[in-house]
C-alpha cells in the first residue's frame, strides 16, 4: 500500500532534528497562546509569518501548524482552571471542566483532555493521510469553471456553519474579495486601488489584515471591558483520572474523534464547530444529561477530542484543494504563498516531501504535546497569574515588531493599525472578520479562475452551469443558503451556538 510508503517519507522529513525543533517551537508557542486569553492562533501566525521567511518551507509550515493544534491543548487548560476559554474551541470545555476543577478534579479533567486530544490527533492524522491523495487526484481534473464554483461553495459553506447573520457574513466575504484584488493585476499590469501608494501596488499584506482584525481589535475590545479572571486551582494534584472516570470518558473520546474528524473537513468546520457539536452529542447520549454543566467528564473528553481532530482534518481541504475553510487555514495559504508554493491539488505531487512531512509532523507534534503539556502545567498556571495589564503591551510589541519586519517599512505598521481600527468597528457592528479573511486570500484566485473559465467559453457565463461538476457545486452552495434561510433550521442553528458567551 502506498500510504505506508508516503508516511515513511513524511516521517523521514518530520523527524530530522531541525524539523523536530520547529515542531516543538510551534507546539510550545501554540500551547502558550492557547493558555493566554486575548491572543489566538490567527494573530500569532500573522506575527510569526515574517520570521519564517528564512526557513525551509516545510519547517515553516510545521511550526505554524503546530501553533494551531498546540492552541487546542493550551485552550483547554485555561478553560478548566480559569473558566475562561483560551480559544473559542474550548468554550464548551469551560462548562464542565471548570466545575470539575471546583470539585478538586482539575487534574483528572486536564489529563483526560490531553489524552483525548492525543488519541484524536493520532486518528485524524491517519485520516488526513488516507483522504488527501484521492481528493487531490479528483481536484486535479477540475478546470477553471469547476474551480471557481468550488471556491464559491467553499466560501458559502464556511459562513453557513459559522454563527451570526448569514447575509452579513456573505457580504464580508465580498468585501474580503475586494481587498484581496488590491494591487497589480497580473494580466493587465494595472495597479488597482493603490491610491498611488507604491507599497499598495504589491497588494495588501495578509499579515496586516489578520493582525489588525484579529490581534489588535481583540486587545482593544478586551481593554474596554473590565473583567476579572480568577484561578481556581493553583496546585493541581492527582493527574490520573479514576477508573470510573476513564470508563465514562473513553467512549466520549471515540465519538468526539469521529465527529471532529468529519466536521473538520467541511468548509467552515475546524476546531470550534467540532467542539460544540461533540458537546451536544455527549449531552444527548448521556443517561444523566442533568450532570452536564455540573462537572461531567464526558463534557470535557468529547469536545476536547473533537476540537483537536477537527483542527487536524481542516488541513485536508487546504492541502488537497487549496481552499482554506477557516481563518487559520487562510493564514496557512498566506504562509505557503510567501514560500512560493501555490496551494492546490498539485502540492501532493510537486512537493511530496512538504506534504507528507507536514502530515507526519502533526503526529510528532501531538506526541510532544501530550508528553510536555502535563508536566508543564505548573508553568502555564504561573503564566495565567500574569495580569492582563502587563500581558497585552508585550503582545502588542511583538506584533509591531513582527509586522515591521515584513518589509522593514513603517507603512505596514500604519496599515495594520488601520485594520485594527476597522476590526474594532467590526466588533461594534457585529461583523465577523473570519469570512473577510477567507475572501481576502481567495480573491485573486477566484478572479483568475473566473477569467479563464469565461475566456474558454468565449464569454458565456452559463459555462458555470452547463458543466456538470461546476453546476453541482453551485447548486450545493445555493441549497446551503436556502436550507439555512428556512426559519426552523435557522433557530436550530442559533440554538447550537447559544452556549457561547458573547
Amino acid at each position: 500500500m502506498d500510504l505506508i510508503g508516503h508516511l515513511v517519507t513524511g516521517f523521514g522529513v518530520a523527524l530530522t532534528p531541525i524539523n523536530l525543533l520547529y515542531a516543538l517551537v510551534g507546539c510550545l508557542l501554540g500551547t502558550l497562546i492557547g493558555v493566554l486569553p486575548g491572543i489566538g492562533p490567527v494573530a500569532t501566525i500573522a506575527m510569526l509569518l515574517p520570521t519564517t521567511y528564512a526557513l525551509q518551507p516545510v519547517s515553516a509550515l510545521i511550526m505554524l501548524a503546530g501553533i494551531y493544534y498546540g492552541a487546542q491543548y493550551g485552550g483547554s487548560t485555561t478553560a478548566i482552571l480559569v473558566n475562561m476559554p483560551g480559544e473559542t474551541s474550548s468554550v464548551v470545555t469551560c462548562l464542565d471542566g471548570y466545575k470539575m476543577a471546583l470539585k478538586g478534579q482539575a487534574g483528572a479533567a486536564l489529563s483526560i483532555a490531553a489524552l483525548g486530544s492525543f488519541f484524536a490527533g493520532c486518528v485524524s492524522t491517519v485520516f488526513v493521510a488516507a483522504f488527501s491523495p484521492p481528493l487531490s487526484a479528483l481536484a486535479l481534473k477540475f478546470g477553471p469553471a469547476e474551480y471557481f464554483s468550488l471556491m464559491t461553495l467553499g466560501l458559502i459553506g464556511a459562513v453557513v456553519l459559522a454563527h451570526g447573520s448569514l447575509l452579513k457574513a456573505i457580504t464580508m466575504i465580498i468585501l474580503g474579495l475586494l481587498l484581496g484584488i488590491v494591487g497589480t493585476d497580473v494580466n493587465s499590469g494595472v495597479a488597482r486601488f493603490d491610491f498611488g501608494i507604491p507599497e499598495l501596488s504589491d497588494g495588501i499584506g495578509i499579515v496586516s489584515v489578520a493582525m489588525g482584525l484579529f490581534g489588535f481589535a481583540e486587545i482593544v475590545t478586551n481593554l474596554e471591558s473590565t473583567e476579572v479572571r480568577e484561578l481556581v486551582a493553583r496546585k493541581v494534584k492527582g493527574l490520573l483520572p479514576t477508573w470510573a472516570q476513564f470508563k465514562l470518558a473513553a467512549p466520549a473520546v471515540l465519538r468526539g474523534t469521529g465527529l471532529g474528524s468529519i466536521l473538520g473537513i467541511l468548509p467552515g468546520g475546524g476546531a470550534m464547530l467540532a467542539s460544540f457539536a461533540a458537546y451536544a452529542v455527549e449531552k444527548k447520549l448521556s443517561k444523566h444529561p442533568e450532570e452536564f454543566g455540573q462537572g461531567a467528564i464526558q463534557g470535557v473528553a468529547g469536545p476536547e477530542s473533537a476540537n483537536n481532530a477537527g483542527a487536524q482534518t481542516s488541513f485536508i481541504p487546504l492541502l488537497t484543494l487549496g481552499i482554506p475553510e477557516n481563518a487559520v487555514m487562510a493564514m496557512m495559504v498566506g504562509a505557503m504563498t510567501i514560500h512560493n508554493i501555490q496551494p492546490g491539488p498539485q502540492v501532493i505531487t510537486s512537493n511530496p516531501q512538504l506534504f507528507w512531512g507536514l502530515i507526519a509532523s502533526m503526529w510528532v507534534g501531538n506526541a510532544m504535546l501530550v508528553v510536555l503539556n502535563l508536566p508543564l502545567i505548573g508553568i502555564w498556571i504561573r503564566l495565567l497569574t500574569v495580569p492582563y495589564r502587563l500581558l497585552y503591551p508585550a503582545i502588542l510589541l511583538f506584533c509591531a515588531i513582527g509586522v515591521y519586519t515584513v518589509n522593514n517599512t513603517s507603512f505596514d505598521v500604519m496599515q495594520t493599525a488601520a485594520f485594527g481600527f476597522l476590526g474594532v468597528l467590526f466588533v461594534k457592528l457585529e461583523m465577523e472578520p473570519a469570512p473577510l479573511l477567507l475572501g481576502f486570500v481567495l480573491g485573486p484566485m477566484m478572479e483568475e479562475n473566473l477569467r479563464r473559465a469565461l475566456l474558454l467559453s468565449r464569454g458565456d457565463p452559463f459555462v458555470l452551469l452547463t458543466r456538470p461538476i461546476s453546476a453541482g457545486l453551485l447548486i450545493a452552495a445555493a441549497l446551503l443558503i436556502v436550507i439555512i434561510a428556512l426559519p426552523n433550521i435557522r433557530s436550530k442553528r442559533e440554538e447550537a451556538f447559544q452556549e457561547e458567551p458573547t
Partner: protein
Amino acid sequence: MKITHPKDFWSGLLFMAIGAFALVYGSKYTIGTAARMGPGYFPRILGILLLLFGGLIAQRAFRLKGDPVPAWKWRPTLLVLGSVVLFGAIVKPLGMALSTVILIVIASAASHEFRAKEAVIAGVLLAALAVGVFVVGLNLQLPIWPGQD
C-alpha cells in the same frame, strides 16, 4: 420608520459606502468583455454586490430588532493603535530600545489599571528582551540606539 436594528443599519451603510467607492474610484479601470475581462471587470461585480447586499442589510434594520451599537471608549483604541503607529514611525531613527519603552508605556496607559512605574519597568525589561531576541538573536536589520540608522 424607525431604525430598530442599529448594528445592521450602520454595517449596511458601511458596505454600501465601500461598494460605491469601489465603483467610482474603480471606474478608471477598463471593463473589457466577459471573454476578455479587463482589470475593472471583477471589481465592478464586487462593487455592485456590496451595494446590493449592503442595501439589503440596511433596509432590514427597519424590520429586525437588535441591540444598540455599544459606545466607543476612545482611550483603548487611540492609545493601543497610536502606540503601534508611533513605534513604526520612530523605530528607525530612535532604535529598538527607546521605541520599545515608548510603545509599552503608551500602550499600558490604555488599561484602566495603569500604573506608571510598573509600565516603565516592564518597558525596560521588554526592550532588553526585544533587542536580545530580534536584533541580536534573529539578526533583524534594526538599529538598537538612536543615530545608528
